[in-house]
């Protein structure tokens, strides 16, 4: 009897291995560093784990959840989509929490929350007290009063508005569920025109010739190919339209500091001078079995930052490359990094 009890108890107690996971080692990053990089981490949908990481390229140090650290362990919310700097504030757009969190640029402490959105994506400051907010599911672009941090109005539009830029009193609004990019008169807040740039247009840049570049992902199941278009912001004419292959889904158009070289993801990182009239045929950086999801070009040193989301359920790996495509280093950020903000 005792023998059997011994056998049983050894079974029971053999499983006593420490369950508590190890807390990560905290690194300190000097916040006043000249060259800090903010990494936007969406976090898993519904889990409320969107975050912003702070990376210091000079020391290679990283704070994985910078907001949490600076805000008494509060978290940002559900799906962090984008961050925009304006007037000594960062505007952090929390897509699935339907809000924009306003923090100080100096210490990243929360100042205000702008509520009342449906599914906000990006914010585009127009004047000192006015900004546009694009939205995935609302039938409008929201106008935000930056003084009171409230929604002051809206501009009826299609759903799925994405990245935006403004130039010559015009705002160019991409719209991923449409073939058109919208043009808004920023004085009257009215859509004045639209440009057929292809299905799935969602990223947009301005080059050093003051031309607008718009990248459309396409939709292979509807036989819409991806496109890269150059648009004249004055005449609103498409000056150049380059088609991708039908199965490809190019995305995340970025531009470097001197605004003469475009970068985008298309199963690898591609680099294209704005003077080119054809699409590059080979990637600058091969993707291999990685899952590139975020892209950014550091204006300080022209370094290419690309985020590997891996399986979308673990810390993204941020890889840094030289403009010639040679690998420099890599570090871990938060879950599902989709982009960067360089200081």
């Amino acid at each position, binding site marked *: 009897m005792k023998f*059997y009890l011994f*056998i*049983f108890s050894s*079974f*029971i107690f*053999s*499983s006593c*291995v420490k*369950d508590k*996971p190890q807390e*990560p080692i905290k690194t300190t990053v000097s916040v006043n560093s000249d060259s800090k990089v903010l990494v936007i981490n969406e976090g*898993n949908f*519904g*889990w*409320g*784990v969107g975050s912003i990481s702070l990376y210091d390229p000079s020391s290679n140090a990283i704070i994985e959840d910078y907001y949490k650290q600076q805000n*008494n*362990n*509060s*978290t940002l*919310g*559900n799906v962090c989509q984008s961050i925009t700097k304006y007037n000594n504030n960062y505007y952090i757009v929390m897509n*699935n*929490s*339907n*809000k924009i969190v306003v923090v100080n640029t100096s210490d990243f402490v929360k100042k205000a929350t702008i509520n*009342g*959105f*449906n*599914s906000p994506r990006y914010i585009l400051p127009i004047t000192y007290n006015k900004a546009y907010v694009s939205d*995935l*599911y609302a039938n409008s672009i929201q106008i935000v009063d930056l003084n009171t941090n409230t929604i002051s109005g809206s501009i*009826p*539009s*299609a*759903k799925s508005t994405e990245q935006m830029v403004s130039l010559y009193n015009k705002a160019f609004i991409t719209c991923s*569920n*449409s*073939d058109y990019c919208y043009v808004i008169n920023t004085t009257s807040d009215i859509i004045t025109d639209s440009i057929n740039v292809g299905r799935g247009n969602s990223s947009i840049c301005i080059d050093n010739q003051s031309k607008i570049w718009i990248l459309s*992902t396409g939709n*292979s*199941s509807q036989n819409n190919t991806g496109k890269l278009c150059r648009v004249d912001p004055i005449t609103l004419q498409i000056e150049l339209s380059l088609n991708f292959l039908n*199965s*490809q*889904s190019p*995305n995340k158009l970025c531009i470097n500091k001197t605004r003469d070289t475009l970068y985008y993801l298309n*199963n690898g990182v591609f680099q294209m001078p704005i003077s080119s009239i054809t699409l590059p045929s080979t990637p600058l950086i091969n993707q*291999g*079995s*990685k*899952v590139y999801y975020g892209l950014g070009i550091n204006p300080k040193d022209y370094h290419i930052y690309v985020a*590997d989301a*891996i*399986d979308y*359920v*673990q*810390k993204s790996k941020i*890889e840094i490359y030289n403009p010639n495509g040679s690998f420099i280093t*890599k570090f871990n950020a938060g*879950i599902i990094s989709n982009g960067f903000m360089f200081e």
Partner: protein
Amino acid sequence: MDCLKTYTSSFSYFLVCFLVYVFNISNINAQQKDTSIHQLNEVTISENKQQMIESSKKITKFDSLTLTNYNTSTLADLLSNQSTIHINTYGNGNISTTSMRGGNANHTALLWNGLNIQNAMLGQADLSIIPVLFFNDVSIEYGGGSAMWGSGAIGGSIHLKNKLAFNQGFKTKLQVSKGSFGTIKLNSGILLSYNKIVSNTKLYINQSENNYAYKDTADKEYPNKTVKHANYTSKGLLEELSFLIHPNQKINIRAWYQNTNRHLPSYSSINNNKNQEDENLKLNADWNFTKRNLNSTIRLGYFNDKLNFSDSLKDIFSKSSVKTFITENDNIYQLKNHTLNFGINYTQYNSTLTEKEPSIYSNISANQSFQSTYHHLYKFSLFAAYKIICFNSKIHYNLSIRKEFTSQTYIPITGNTGIQYQLTKHLITKLNFNKSYRQPTLNDLYWNPGGNPNLKPEDGYEMEGGLEYRYTKNHFGLSMEATYFNRHTKNWIIWLPNKDNIWSPKNIAEVYSRGTETKTELSYLNENLLIKMILSTSYILSTYQKTNGENDNSVGRQLIFTPRYNGQASLLIKYKHFNFLFNSNYTGYRFTATDNSSWLNPYYISNFKCSYSYSINTVNTELFCNINNLFNKTYVIISNNPMPLRNYEIGISLTYQKTKKEKLPTN
């Protein structure tokens, strides 16, 4: 207890233990005329297919007293409180799925009278909409069981059964309860049981505002919040008919209908209008006949599972429906100590998915059309199992194989083999090997865009060994069970963006799961008093084995939302008219990232149930009270999906019973 000894010689040791269980309960419930001892006698020998493998596997069964205690609850509540299966729940009343032996929600087969009722599009079952009330036999079979039950039984299987006894007379019951968060539950049943026909009708309606308060640990500014937009209504009807058309022939017909309408809360959004309606109709008929040593069953099943999801803010309207047709012939041939089981099964799934076309321009959204897609999947299975009991009933050996053919892909042969050896009078050992599989879901195969029709089934290879100790003396009973298992699951399906950036499933992961499970049960029984203490533990390591790209840091790490530690303790006391049940459940850390860089804290939740019942003539009145989360703990099971704090339920049930004179069916 004397009668137990007479059983010992003729049945397997396992069955005896089974009977001790049931007998204890039926004894104490004398006034309720629990006849499960007779049923077991009848059913186990004839049509129970589970008997082919149960001697070498770990199977736990809920006793009827526990089931009665959970009469107003869902299967998710029962399993999370009374077993070490991990239930992932997205908040109170919200979707609940299982994780057994380190598998995911797709790896637990849910069987209703032997037929798999997992949703073929999702490959899983939502346990939060299944009422415990509808079943009088619930058991858990641990480990792979595809050789017996087909696709999905990789981590384990949950068996729900309806068993009817003839000649029990008339019984009707009405139960009403009121709980926290504006919850009202009502159920009733009528049982008519005669010599040759039994009819059992049960119906319920549950309604809840479900507006519980919780503490948002992520928000330091305003942590005290209330769940909004989570109210639900659930109603259902079960009708069972059993006919003894001949001393050797029986027909069962069952119809199970239910409708659950839920608003789905969004804990971090201010705006939310998500809604889910589940409508399930399940019909099942079987004809069972015995001739000499052969017992044959023909089963028919028709299930129609509808799931309508809408999110008006996001303009998402999706309606899915899966119709399942099952025909099965199952035979058990018994010759002395040999038992042979063989049969065929044909299953057909017809699915329809209707979605609103994505809108391009808002102003024409009113005229948008709905687009439907249809898919079919056919499956044909051959299965056979053999069991022998030899060496003075000391050795039970079993072997079973199953081969399936589908219209979609090649499915390899699955099998199970196991042996039980009785070491001493009180101690038995078990050893079991199995190969199990899960076919890709209809969504994995055909989702547009991204569905991958070339997916292979997932394969599991499992070994388990166990020791069981059973001891009874006078009024005391002690049983202890320890099991070790070890399983490799290959071709595990994961959805990831492909090179064209479209999310698509692939057979890329490999998972190694292993662990130990224990169950210790101590009981005391006399005329007036039953005390039962149960302690169950599980320690499960389930780790990713294959790297997915050079930056992948998940190899050797624990699967997400799969606790390594789970412990459950319960104390049941029944003294005369009083009944108390106290249980505690500990769930260890669960990781939320595949590189194990983030996790959720463990939780330790206790529940208390008590009731008082008395009978005047043929009317029995029972007053009951439940306290859930007794110690008012703040916890989440899934990130950002808070669970309720302490909450209450009080109720009354009235039973009128007119018993016929005891007369066993001639079957």
